[in-house]
């Protein structure tokens, strides 16, 4: 990944880290589900596509993604110029980083308990 993309990723990740409660749900599978769900919807919105709104979970991820995308656009104007491929790379990069921090390397010892 090039340096510019890396810096951009840092900026977006910094915002999500501080702001978004969905990354910190109780168990690793909930976190994975949220990371994938919200960022897939966010990628669609950033690319100017309509969100998926078939199921209740689609609507949930849309609600989180809509506010996230509005905030990111406001804070990081360079997002306006990002093409489809760049957005895809950014969202994939964000997913990877979030999974790494809040699942793989998380010190939270309850993450993999099979019960709530």
């Amino acid at each position, binding site marked *: 990944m090039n340096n510019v993309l890396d810096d951009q990723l840092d900026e977006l990740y910094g915002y999500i880290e*501080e702001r978004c409660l969905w990354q910190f749900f109780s168990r690793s599978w909930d976190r994975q589900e949220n990371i994938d769900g919200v960022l897939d919807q966010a990628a669609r919105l950033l690319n100017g596509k309509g969100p998926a709104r078939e199921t*209740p979970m689609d609507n949930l991820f849309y609600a989180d993604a*809509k506010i996230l995308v509005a905030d990111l656009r406001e804070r990081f104007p360079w997002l306006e110029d990002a093409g489809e491929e760049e957005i895809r790379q950014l969202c994939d990069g964000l997913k990877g980083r979030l999974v790494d921090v809040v699942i793989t390397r998380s*010190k939270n010892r*309850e993450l993999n308990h099979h019960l709530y």
Partner: protein
Amino acid sequence: MPMVLLECDKDIPERQRHIFLKTPEDDVRECLPIANVPTIPGSLSERGCAFCGAKLVIGGVLKDTIQMIHGPVGCAYDTWHTKRYPSDNGHFPLKYVWSTDMKEQHIVFGGEKRLEQSIHEAFDEMPDVKRMIVYTTCPTALIGDDVKAVVKKVMKERPDVDIFTVECPGFSGVSQSKGHHVLNIGWINEKVGTAEKEITSEYTINFIGDYNIQGDTFLLQKYWDRLGIQVISHFTGNGTYDDLRCMHQAKLNVVNCARSAGYIANELKKRHGIPRLDIDTWGFNYMAEGIRKVCAFFGIEERGEELIADEYAKWKPQLDWYKERLLGKKMAIWTGGPRLWHWTKSVEDDMGIEVVAMSSKFGHEEDFEKVVARGREGTYYIDDANELEFFEIIDLVKPDVIFTGPRVGELVKKLHIPYINGHAYHNGPYMGFEGFVNMARDIYNATHNPLAYLAGQDIRDPTPLVMPERLREVA
């Protein structure tokens, strides 16, 4: 060195694993205070018992339910009236307390008869009330009273009543947190889905993890009403027993306190397919975001924007007046757990306040992940702090105001540092837009009140301190 061994802990060095200092040099993800583990012997903990987590925090808030506490009278007294949750039916939860008042003879010969008699007596005395939660406590659990059998017998004799049993004696967990868990899981297993209510809107939610502290629920209810959203159940602010049996009917679970009530939201997602949306309800920015998300879920964004615009127009100028005067003030938050991460950024963004130390009594590691992600560098993050640690931390960070409970509050008052009740509030509600102005006002009053300063003066001192300008203005 991000995990800190305080001077006062040199004889209990295990405490180092519970105290974290966020610094720019360290990768914060490499360290997390360990939490939700037993208190270390020798540490004077501020925690409550597991029974308290079930009764005082969640069950006791219900406005139509007798809270029968099967144990000595102290268990009842200690979990009554220390949190201020009013209700719209004459403050039922604040007025009454029930106990089986166990004495030595009941411990020796068993307390089941006593319990049965007490349940009948309570229903007879309050013929309009048909719902009850029975709690076990340490003594009755230890002697092995079969509470569920008694409850079953009474329900057979009185077909018009419904009783829920919480078997969560004080010793069953390391803190209040265990009680939250037992009540959440027990309720979804036994009661959710056993009643249905009339649906009056296509937009339905459960509002989970708000306990109507000084009217928080009343305030938020105005927003839901205006948005046309039907709240199927409040878990449990100003809530009713039967509404909570209908939780399966909602389309969305909106969660405020993820610690005390995240379990039931998770189970509702797993068993009933109802999505869980976590929001923050304290703070302008956060509240607006929460409303926007709920409205986006239902596709009623315009209603949300109108509400937010009106509330901002009404309350933002007042908040800004306080913000100007609170800029740079240093605050410590020593409460249960979630308020650390709910508040640290909202007071910073909306009031210009720096949160310099935070301590949690019953938070889990999940809560510390959240608060470390949101909190400032140079701030201490502490699990299950003890009194000596509080004193040492005060010396290190010199807070202008401390949000904590009345017990620790009395301690810090003696140091002439203003304290605000972080559990039950001083002059709430604190949630929502109006609520955050109340909170700002309480912080302003606390930090600008000359009393704490004057109390610190020894009138015999030949060289008295000079009252700071800020206090002289308001004195």
